[in-house]
């Protein structure tokens, strides 16, 4: 009886220590949660994993996550992305460590893939141009591009440069752009300013960005009367 008492007394003491988030509960019941915050998750399909543990599917637009399985104090955790969401990439910050308390400092940063929005421009015959058709400004909401006279094409892509004007490349060495449209986002191309000497209208200017760039926006300009 005595040993039983003391054993249960000890185990409840350990449990108390664990419940208080203290460490040194080796061999005790796992009771520390592993989780953290998520940024930029707009797509479904994200699956996280802690070590060799079970998958944790995370729905789109989640801002936080916590694994269903608890770990013990002083256990190692290693949270990784098992599957990226559809058309997005997620990276883990502070994913690895050893628990002392509930782990809530892991950050999953997700970036949705984005694609170029571009198209072609048909100008009036040179012979019908009374003046250089300068000043056309096309915009997709707040993103505006000024079009040079008689330019046959346009894009909303704008190369990202550093403070010295050098193009910024991504980890694979590819140039990076602003003005791209996220996979799944709507776009609407409008004429913010008509050029001198011509009147332009947009067809195929509205839609939702899919998994490939949109290149079929057509701007047709006719000689202004």
């Amino acid at each position: 009886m005595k040993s039983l008492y003391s054993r249960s007394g000890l185990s409840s003491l350990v449990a108390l220590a664990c419940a208080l988030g203290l460490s040194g509960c080796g061999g005790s019941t796992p009771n520390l949660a592993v989780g953290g915050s998520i940024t930029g998750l707009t797509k479904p399909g994200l699956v996280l994993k802690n070590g060799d543990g079970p998958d944790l599917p995370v729905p789109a637009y989640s801002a936080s996550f916590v694994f269903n399985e608890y770990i013990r104090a002083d256990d190692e955790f290693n949270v990784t992305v098992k599957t990226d969401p559809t058309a997005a990439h997620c990276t883990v910050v502070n994913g690895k460590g050893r628990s002392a308390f509930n782990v809530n400092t892991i950050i999953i940063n997700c970036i949705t893939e984005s694609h170029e929005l571009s198209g072609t421009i048909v100008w009036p015959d040179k012979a019908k141009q009374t003046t250089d058709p300068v000043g056309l400004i096309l915009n997709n909401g707040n993103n505006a591009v000024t079009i040079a006279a008689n330019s046959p094409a346009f894009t909303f892509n704008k190369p990202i440069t550093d403070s010295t004007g050098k193009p910024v490349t991504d980890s694979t060495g590819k140039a990076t752009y602003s003005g791209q449209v996220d996979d799944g986002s709507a776009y609407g191309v409008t004429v913010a300013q008509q050029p001198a000497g011509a009147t332009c209208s947009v067809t195929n200017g509205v839609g939702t960005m899919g998994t490939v760039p949109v290149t079929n926006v057509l701007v047709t300009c006719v000689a202004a009367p």
Partner: protein
Amino acid sequence: MTSIFLRAACMLAMALGLSACGGKAEFKVTGLVSGLKYPTLKLSTNGQSVTVLPADTNGTTVNFSFPNTISYGDEYDLVFDTQPAHQSCSFYDPVNNSKGVAGRLAAINVVIICGVSTHTVGGKVSDLTSTGLTLINGSIGGTALVAPVPADPVSTTAPFAPAPYTLPIAVPYFEYYGLSILYQPLYDNCTITGKAAGQMLDTDIADISVSCARDAIAGSVTGLTVDGLTLKNVAALPNTTPTVVVAKDATVFSFGKDDVNKDVAYDVQVATQPAGLVCTVSNGTGTVKSTALPISVACKAG
């Protein structure tokens, strides 16, 4: 010699922001403005004023300093005499920072934050009779779902009032906006008739008109050799039964586009038969823009 030493000690004390050096310690009222892009911000306190000009149009932080010092123990309480154009500035901490007593802290450093004014984009949709119209301002300017507005009181000539809309995300001064129709409503075809795009100035854009039109209830007529046929739509608005008089030799008929009920169902029947003929309606019931068979009216001698 002694007095020189004393003066130097006092200056040192003043430099350290200490008081009680014969005369009182003096303090400059200084601060910084973050986000200032446009002229002209004017501040005042203790009978002085200072004009703060932007460093550039990116809103790079600028410092300011009032021309004269105030003495230890003097109260200061900055106010905005003039806000910059297109912007609204406020004190970061109006309780403990933009007012106080000189000497409470070693230096007076007032923090001001300026944001660019924003204005909404909106307008009215005329003749909208069905749900689903979705307007956008580019990819990140928000989405407005516009619902039809029944006229009050309901009338046959104009069963729907113009439906107002405002995009949910306001646009900062000088930023571009452009209204597009992402999705058409269920039973109407809408077009933007106002100026859809431009650069935001100092007032809300509330006049981008969108107008919608719905296919009228119409069909074909055969064998109508005399006048006198009148058709009715018995599924129209409550307490009303729109009619259309079909003249002899007509091959088509059409109700007015508003002569339908709000659920957009129709039920076309013969109201008056022409003399000597019996006309029958085929496919007279359906809903506008459904894939229902075309309505036809066949007349023959009775």
